[in-house]
C-alpha cells in the first residue's frame, strides 16, 4: 500500500448509484448524515440499462410506496416520462397500476441533478474493491486506487456489476451492462467476510434505429388522455404533456424457425451461461422453446427517449449470436430492414443469497452493513429503488441508534418484497407480482400515501405539511364514508331515471346511497346528482370513498386476515439464536431456523420446512423463556 493514500471520513458509504443506490444515498443525506455514493461511472447514475419503463403491474405500486415514504423515483419519472398509462383499469382498484415510458437519458440526468443538489451528499467515481470491518462491524470501504473511506455504515447496491460478463452467441464481453466497467474485486472481499454469493443472469433485447423501422406495419400504442402522476407531490396539471407512442408488432413462424435452427449457438443452450435466469422475462428463444404451440409473440417497439433514434424491442431479449439477431429481428413485420444499434445480450453477475439479511436489510453477519437492489437477488428498477430506500433509511437509523424500519406484509408491497427475499428460497432474480401480496386489496397504489406517510414522516423523510394533508384526507374519507352509509335514497322519478341511464335495476323501495354505490354499474361519482347534501371533496378523497364503500365486504375480510397475521408477527425471536437447544423442534426445523434466524414467529412460520407443530413448540418455548426471566 502506498504510504500516502487518500483517507476520508463519512457517516455512510453507498456503493453503487443505480436505482437502489440513489434512493439509499438520498435517504441517508436527507436524514442529515454525511454520505458518499460510489459509482464506476458518473454518467451511469440512475441508468436504465434494460427496458425504458418505470412502473407496470405491482411495480407501479412499489413506486407509489417509495414516494409515500419520501423516496425519489416517483418524482423523477414524473419529470422525465414521455408516455404514461394506467394498466388494468377495467379490473379492480387493487390491480390498477401506473406504467410510464421514460426518456432514459433525461431520467438519468434528472436523478444525477437531484443527487448533486442534495446537501451532505458526495458523488465519487471509483470502483470499491474491499469492505473494511473490525470486530464484526463495518468500518468503511477501500477503492481500487487504495483510497480508504471510513464510515459507520455501508450500503451495498452493486446491481449487476459484480464480476459481470455480457454474452451473445460465443462472444463474451467482460463488462457490466451497456459496456460499462464491471466491479471484479469486491466479490472476493465479501466472500472473505463469510458472505454467500449466488450467480444470477438476466438479459435485454437489441436497441434499433427508428429510421430503419416501418411503423405503418405496426399498431400504434398511445398513452392515456389524462395522465395520473406517480408522486403524491406532483401536481396532476404538470404531467398533461404531449406523449410519444409505442408500437405493437408480432413475431411469426419464420422468426421461430430461425431461432429453433440456431438454438445450439445460444450460450444458454450450449451451457456457457451458468447463472440462473428469471422465468418471468424469458428470452425470445426461451419463449419459442417453452411455448412451442404459440404461433406468434407480441413485440413492443418503444422509444428510449426524445433526443435519440434508439428504440427498445420489448419482448425479444436474446443471447443468440449477432448474425442470428439480425435475421430474426428482420422477420418481424415492420423490422424487415432494421438496423441494430446495440446487440441483445445476456448478463451474468454475482449477487447474495438474501437470507443473510434481516428484514431491515442489514447483514446478520456484519453490523452496519446493509444492501439493496439486484445485489440482493431481485430484478427490476422499482424493486431496487424500494430496497435501496429501506436500506438507506435503516443505515441512518443504525447510526442514530433508532429502531430499524421493518415493513411487514400487511403494510406494503415493499414489505412483501423484502419478506419474500429474506424468508423464502430464492433461485432466480425476484420480481414483484400482485399475486405475491396476500392482502392486495388493502395494498393499493391509490392508498399508498394513506398507508405509509405516517412512517415516512416518523422516519424524517416526509415533511410535516405533507403529513398533515394525509391526516386531513383520512378524516375527510372517514366522515364521507359514514355519511354515505346513512343517506337514504327514495324511489323517486329522478333516481329511477339515473338508474335507467346506467342500466341499473330501478328501486322498489328506498335504499342507502352506499347500497347503490355497491352496484357494479354505479359508483360514488355517478350518483352525485341524486345526492343533494354531498360536500365538495377533492377527487382523491372521492376515489377513496368510492373504493371503501364498493368493496367494503372484501376489505373487511382482508382486514380480519391481517389481524390474525399480526399475532405471530408481533412475537419476536432472539437474535443469533441456537435453535438446536429447543427440545421438540424437528431436526429440519432446527436447521432451517438456525440458517434463516427469523426475527419473529410469523417469519419463522413462512420458512419452508418449518411446520405448524414447530411453531407451536416455538411459542411454548418462548413463553417458557419469558417466565424464567420473570423469575
Amino acid at each position, binding site marked *: 500500500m502506498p504510504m500516502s493514500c487518500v483517507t476520508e471520513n463519512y457517516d455512510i458509504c453507498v456503493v453503487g448509484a443505480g436505482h437502489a443506490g440513489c434512493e439509499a444515498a438520498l435517504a441517508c443525506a436527507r436524514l442529515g448524515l454525511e454520505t458518499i455514493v460510489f459509482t464506476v461511472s458518473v454518467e451511469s447514475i440512475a441508468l436504465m440499462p434494460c427496458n425504458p419503463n418505470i412502473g407496470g403491474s405491482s411495480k407501479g405500486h412499489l413506486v407509489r410506496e417509495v414516494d409515500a415514504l419520501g423516496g425519489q423515483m416517483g418524482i423523477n419519472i414524473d419529470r422525465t416520462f414521455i408516455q404514461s398509462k394506467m394498466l388494468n383499469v377495467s379490473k379492480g382498484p387493487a390491480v390498477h397500476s401506473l406504467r410510464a415510458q421514460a426518456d432514459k437519458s433525461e431520467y438519468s440526468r434528472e436523478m444525477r441533478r437531484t443527487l448533486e443538489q442534495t446537501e451532505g451528499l458526495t458523488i465519487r467515481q471509483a470502483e470499491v474493491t474491499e469492505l473494511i470491518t473490525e470486530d464484526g462491524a463495518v468500518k468503511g470501504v477501500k477503492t481500487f486506487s487504495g483510497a480508504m473511506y471510513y464510515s459507520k455504515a455501508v450500503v451495498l447496491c452493486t446491481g449487476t456489476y459484480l464480476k459481470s460478463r455480457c454474452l451473445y452467441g460465443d462472444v463474451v464481453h467482460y463488462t457490466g451492462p451497456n459496456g460499462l466497467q464491471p466491479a471484479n474485486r469486491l466479490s472476493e472481499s465479501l466472500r472473505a467476510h463469510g458472505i454467500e454469493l449466488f450467480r444470477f443472469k438476466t438479459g435485454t433485447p437489441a436497441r434499433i434505429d427508428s429510421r430503419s423501422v416501418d411503423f405503418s406495419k405496426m399498431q400504434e400504442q398511445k398513452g392515456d388522455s389524462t395522465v395520473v402522476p406517480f408522486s403524491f407531490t406532483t401536481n396532476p396539471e404538470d404531467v398533461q404533456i404531449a406523449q410519444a407512442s409505442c408500437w405493437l408488432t408480432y413475431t411469426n413462424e419464420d422468426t421461430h424457425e430461425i431461432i429453433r435452427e440456431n438454438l445450439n449457438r445460444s450460450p444458454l443452450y450450449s451451457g456457457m451461461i451458468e447463472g440462473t435466469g428469471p422465468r418471468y*422475462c424469458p428470452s425470445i428463444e426461451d419463449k419459442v422453446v417453452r411455448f412451442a404451440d404459440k404461433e406468434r409473440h407480441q413485440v*413492443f417497439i418503444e422509444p428510449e427517449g426524445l433526443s435519440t433514434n434508439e428504440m427498445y424491442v420489448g419482448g425479444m431479449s436474446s443471447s443468440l449470436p449477432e448474425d442470428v439477431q439480425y435475421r430474426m429481428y428482420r422477420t418481424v413485420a415492420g423490422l424487415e430492414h432494421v438496423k441494430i444499434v446495440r446487440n441483445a445480450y445476456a448478463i451474468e453477475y454475482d449477487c447474495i443469497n438474501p437470507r443473510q439479511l434481516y428484514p431491515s436489510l442489514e447483514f446478520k453477519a456484519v453490523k452496519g452493513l446493509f444492501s439493496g437492489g439486484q445485489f440482493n437477488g431481485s430484478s427490476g428498477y422499482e424493486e431496487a429503488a424500494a430496497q435501496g430506500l429501506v436500506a438507506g433509511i435503516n443505515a441512518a437509523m443504525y447510526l442514530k441508534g433508532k429502531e430499524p424500519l421493518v415493513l411487514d406484509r400487511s403494510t406494503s408491497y415493499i414489505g412483501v418484497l423484502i419478506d419474500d427475499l429474506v424468508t423464502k428460497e430464492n433461485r432466480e432474480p425476484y420480481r414483484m407480482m400482485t399475486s*405475491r401480496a396476500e392482502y392486495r386489496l388493502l395494498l393499493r397504489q391509490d392508498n399508498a400515501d394513506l398507508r405509509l406517510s405516517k412512517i415516512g414522516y416518523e422516519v424524517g423523510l416526509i415533511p410535516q405539511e405533507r403529513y398533515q394533508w394525509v391526516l386531513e384526507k383520512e378524516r375527510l374519507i372517514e366522515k364521507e364514508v359514514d355519511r354515505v352509509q346513512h343517506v337514504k335514497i327514495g324511489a323517486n322519478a329522478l333516481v329511477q331515471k339515473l338508474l335507467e341511464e346506467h342500466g341499473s335495476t330501478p328501486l322498489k323501495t328506498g335504499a342507502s346511497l352506499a347500497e347503490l354505490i355497491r352496484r357494479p354499474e354505479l359508483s360514488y361519482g355517478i350518483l352525485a346528482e341524486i345526492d343533494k347534501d354531498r360536500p365538495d371533496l377533492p377527487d382523491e378523497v372521492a376515489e377513496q370513498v368510492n373504493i371503501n364503500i364498493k368493496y367494503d365486504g372484501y376489505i373487511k375480510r382482508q382486514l380480519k386476515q391481517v389481524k390474525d397475521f399480526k399475532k405471530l408477527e408481533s412475537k419476536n425471536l432472539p437474535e443469533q439464536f441456537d435453535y438446536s437447544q429447543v427440545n421438540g423442534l424437528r431436526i429440519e426445523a432446527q436447521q432451517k431456523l438456525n440458517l434463516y434466524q427469523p426475527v419473529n414467529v410469523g417469519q419463522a412460520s413462512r420458512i419452508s420446512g418449518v411446520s405448524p407443530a414447530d411453531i407451536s413448540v416455538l411459542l*411454548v418455548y418462548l413463553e417458557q423463556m419469558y417466565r424464567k426471566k420473570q423469575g
Partner: protein
Amino acid sequence: MKTDTIAAIATAMANSGIGIIRISGGEAFSVIDKIYRPKKGNKKLSQAESHTVHYGYICDGEKVVDEVMVLILKSPNTYTREDTVEIDCHGGTLVQTRILETAIKYGARPAEPGEFTKRAFLNGRIDLSQAESVIEVINAQNDFALESSLRQLQGTVKEKIQGIRGKLIHEIAFIESALDDPEHISIEGYGERLMETVSELSTQISELILNAENGSLLKEGINTVIIGKPNVGKSSLMNMLAGEERAIVTDIAGTTRDILKEQVNLNGITLNVIDTAGIRDTRDVVEQIGVDRAKTYLSQADLVLYMVDSSVSFDVNDEEILSLLSGKKAIVLLNKSDLDQVTTEELVRAKMGQKQMGHPIFPISIKDGKGTKELERAIQELFFHGEISFNNEIYITNVRQKSALQSALESLSMVKQSIEDGMPEDFYSIDLVGACEELGNITGESVGEDLVNEIFSKFCMGK
C-alpha cells in the same frame, strides 16, 4: 390476546361409556347456544352461571344429535383459561364425531394437535416445570395426526383433491398472469368460463363431502370378517351387505376359495367386510390356502360374523371355528331359518356356554331377507356403544378433512357470488386462493410457490 374457538373430542373414544367434547375460546358460548336445546324451555347457556351442569340435547337445526350434559366453564377458571364448554355425551365414535362436527358447523374449528394443552400453557394455566411435557404432547399428537391424515386418505380421494386443487391453481395463475401482463394476456369474457369450472369443481367437492359423511374418505373402517363352514351362505351375506352381486354364489361347497373384500356402509359406519373361504378340513391345496388366510383375517378382525347353517348339524368344523371366536367381538348368525332347524339357537348357546362365550345369536334367512335388519342394528349398537374399537384418530382426521372441504366449498361459492355480482376478475382469485389453501390443508401443500410455478410454466410473460 383474543384467540379463535377450537373444539375437539377430549376422551379416548373407544370402550368408554361417556364421551367428552370440549370447546374453548371467545366464541365457545355462542357456539353452544346455537347447538344446545334444553329439555324444557329455551334457556341460553351463555347466560348460565359458571361451573354449572345442564341437561338437554345437542341439535343440528331440528335434528337431535345426542342427549347430553353440558358444563359451562367461564374464563379464567378453566383448563385453557378461556371460556370453555364441555359436552358429556354417549361414548362411541359416531356420536362424539357428530357432536364435534356440529360444533364446527356452528362456528368452532377443529383443534390442532395438542392445542388445548398449548393454550393452557400459553395462558399461564400450566406450570413452567411442565413446559417440556407440553411440547411432548404437541409433538406426539402431531405425529399421530400427520401419520393418520395422509396415510388414511384413500389414494383415489387424494388424487381427486389434488386434481381439483391443480385446476384451481391453473385458473388463479391465468387470472394473475393476465393482471401482471395485461398487454400479453387478455381476460375478456373469462367470468362465464370460470363459472362453469367452479360449478364443476364445487360438485366434485360436494361429492367428497358426502363421501366423508359416509366415512369412505378413509381407508380403514371396522375390519369385519365373515366366517363359517363352506356353503353356509357367507357370500350371500356379503352380497346382502354390499348390496350387489359381489361374491360368486353357488350351491357348490368351497366356491369362495380366496378372500373377497368389500367396503360397506351401515348408516355412517364403515365396515371392511371380508368374505372368507369356508373353514373345513380339506385336502384341496388351493382351498387350504384360503382356509389358512381366513384364520389369519379372523385373528386381526375387529368384528366377526360367524355364520352357521341351521339346517345341518353342528359338527367338528363348527366346534373349531367357535373356539377361534374366544376373546373376539362376534355375532353368531343362524342362517337358513327358512328351512327345518337342525342346529337350534339353544344348541349353539349351550356350546358357547361350555366355552364361556356370550356372543349375541340371530336366526336369519338371507334368502327371505329375514333378520337382516336386526343384524344391521346389532352391528350399529355394538359400534354406537363403543364396544367395537379401532383407530379412532381416523375419525378426528376425517372431521378435519371434512371441515376443510366444507370451507373450500364455501370459498368457491364466494367466487360464484363475485362472478354473479359482476366484480372485476382480480376479486375471483381472492376466494380461489382461499379454496386452494383449504384443500392444501388436506394434502399438505401450500399455495405460494405452486402458483408462481404455474404462472411461469403455463403462461408466457413478456418483457
